[in-house]
């Protein structure tokens, strides 16, 4: 049976339960496209509710008799009202979809492929197409060894550069978003690239989407990072500016090339770096297509599927059409992108598989100024993200980066949100070498010093004074 809004309204009034009537009327207003008469009836009912008593069914039927198509006098029972509302929503969505398809068909010849994609994308937002009818499986089910199954998930998580970070945040598990946040010049891309590098070296398939930089520049940084992480002699390190200014000696050029090949060999196709000229990402459909291509490429070259995506960085998606809606602000649009990536992390390309997303994003100016005060140095809080407030909600872990201006080569890393861990009392202090595109201690002998070295005079004060 096809229900009308009028029937639902009169059936609601028949329950004589003011609270129930109010709640359902609000639902109708939010979810159903109402015509003028239906709106007028609702206004009437709400006015009477404000006076303390909903109008009677007879009063409404008499006053709006011209709108009453319910000649058989059908009354929907209280239990069936939700189903009736749902049936109206579906019926309206079907009608809207038909109308939109006809409209699109009539103008299709005049649209560019790009415009066509946006229109099709917006059609996919129709409730009929987004509703899922299959009954999902209950995840609370019998398992032979539930503890080990849980452990398996955390063991399989991805690395976040350092065990010191993982001691607080845990590993980057599949099905989660890890946000990497920092103000301009806080080594966000260095952190993101190193995360991709270390995970790819550990056998995970990582797609790095570089929207801020070119793939060429990133690959150079990756080689420098590889050199820094594998060298144990400072003389071997290659400074980014030497490459930029073409100052490498023939020996250094050879060393650079050898390290490039070594990197390629060790990573063995587990890291894909695509920049904006390589991919199309204007809409969710475009991004789906890009992710599918990356997944296919991994399957072809490594035999396994994509494990993680690094998006560097979120703000640069602001010129896209995303879901094809009319967005009121850039924040709304970026929030939609965060939701998109959250969905991908939980159900990658609707395959039911979970992946990890590393989302690089900017910190707002106010938070940066606050974190620059001596009292709060580097201690960003959870509200620091400037691009999208959805980041706070969607992220499993938020990692903030702050370049310490008082101490050379020092980065303060805070973890204001760690759903599977704890927030450190003080930001963690890390060495950072922008010139070598590397975060963390260099593996160079004789450069590290501990309290023990100092107490036993293994490293004398004189050598320290002279090192300064």
């Amino acid at each position, binding site marked *: 049976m096809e229900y009308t809004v009028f029937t639902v309204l009169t059936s609601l009034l028949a329950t004589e339960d003011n609270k129930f009537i109010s709640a359902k009327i609000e639902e109708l207003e939010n979810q159903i496209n109402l015509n003028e008469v239906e709106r007028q009836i609702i206004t009437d009912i709400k006015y009477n509710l404000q006076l303390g008593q909903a109008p009677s069914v007879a009063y409404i039927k008499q006053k709006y008799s011209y709108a009453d198509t319910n000649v058989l006098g059908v009354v929907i029972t209280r239990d069936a009202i939700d189903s009736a509302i749902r049936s109206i929503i579906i019926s309206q969505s079907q009608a809207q979809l038909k109308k939109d398809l006809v409209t699109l068909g009539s103008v299709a010849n005049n649209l560019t492929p790009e415009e066509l994609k946006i229109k099709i994308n917006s059609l996919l937002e129709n409730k009929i197409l987004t509703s899922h009818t299959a009954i999902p499986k209950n995840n609370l089910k019998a398992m032979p060894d539930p503890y080990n199954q849980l452990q398996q998930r955390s063991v399989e998580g991805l690395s976040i550069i350092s065990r010191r970070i993982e001691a607080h945040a845990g590993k980057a598990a599949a099905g989660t978003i890890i946000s990497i946040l920092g103000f301009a010049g806080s080594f966000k891309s260095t952190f993101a690239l190193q995360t991709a590098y270390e995970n790819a070296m550990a056998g995970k398939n990582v797609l790095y989407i570089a929207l801020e930089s070119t793939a060429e520049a990133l690959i150079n940084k990756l080689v420098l990072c590889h050199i820094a992480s594998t060298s144990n002699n400072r003389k071997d390190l290659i400074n980014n500016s030497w490459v930029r200014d073409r100052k490498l000696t023939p020996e250094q050029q050879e060393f650079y090339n050898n390290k490039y090949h070594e990197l390629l060999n060790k990573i063995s196709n587990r890291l894909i770096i695509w920049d904006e000229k390589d991919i199309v990402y204007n809409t969710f459909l475009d991004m789906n297509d890009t992710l599918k291509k990356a997944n296919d490429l991994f399957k072809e070259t490594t035999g396994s599927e994509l494990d993680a995506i690094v998006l560097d960085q979120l703000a640069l998606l602001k010129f896209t059409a995303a879901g094809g809606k009319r967005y009121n602000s850039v924040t709304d649009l970026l929030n939609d992108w965060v939701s998109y990536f959250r969905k991908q992390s939980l159900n990658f390309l609707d395959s039911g598989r979970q992946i990890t997303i590393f989302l690089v994003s900017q910190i707002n100016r106010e938070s940066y100024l606050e974190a620059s005060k001596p009292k709060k140095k580097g201690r960003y809080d959870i509200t620091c993200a400037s691009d999208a407030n959805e980041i706070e909600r969607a992220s499993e872990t938020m990692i903030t980066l702050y370049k310490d201006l008082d101490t050379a080569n020092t980065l303060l890393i805070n973890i204001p949100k760690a759903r599977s861990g704890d927030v450190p009392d003080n930001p963690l202090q890390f060495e950072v070498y922008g010139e070598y595109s590397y975060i963390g201690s260099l593996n160079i002998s004789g*450069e590290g010093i501990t309290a023990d070295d100092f107490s036993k005079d293994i490293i004398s*004060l004189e050598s320290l*004074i002279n*090192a300064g």
Partner: protein
Amino acid sequence: MLNKFILAGKFKPLITGPRDKFVKKADQIRSVIFNNNLSDVKAILLYGSDTREPVYYAFGIYYSLLKDRVLDYAITTGQHFINQHFLTEATRDLDLYSKIYSSDLLFISLSQFDYTSDYLESLLIDLVDTRSTNNKITIIHYDILDTKNYMHTTKKLSDYFLSNHIVIDLTKQSKPNQQTSNTKAQTKKASERFI
């Protein structure tokens, strides 16, 4: 583990005067630190008659290594602190004033002849208390200019440090590398808090 160059660079601004003399003096302080277990101490009152920079340098390096973190530090004098205290927010050196309360390490220099105010003592005690509560280390260096009566002039301050923290008279320290005490500061009796 800290990087030697980053640590050395952080405290480099404290290096003054001839390098060999600086090294010698800093090494003496290093011996004082290791001859007396200061790892749990949050505030120290030092009496000294020599340049204070090597003292600050040795303590800065020691506490950074102990906490496995290159510590931020600030340096001020008692006079400067009390002057700042009486200024309004508009005229105060807010950056330094904020660092006095929040830096990991604070070095305060007091000079015997400038030291004329009971109020300064109260302010310093309050400051040390606040910082200790926040787990921050404060080192006060009292510069002895007249070898007589210096303990008497600072009675209130030294009494407070003897009851709560530790007092070290650098002019009476034994030769380097002679172990004098292994007792933890928190368990010391008042008489043991004077080294």
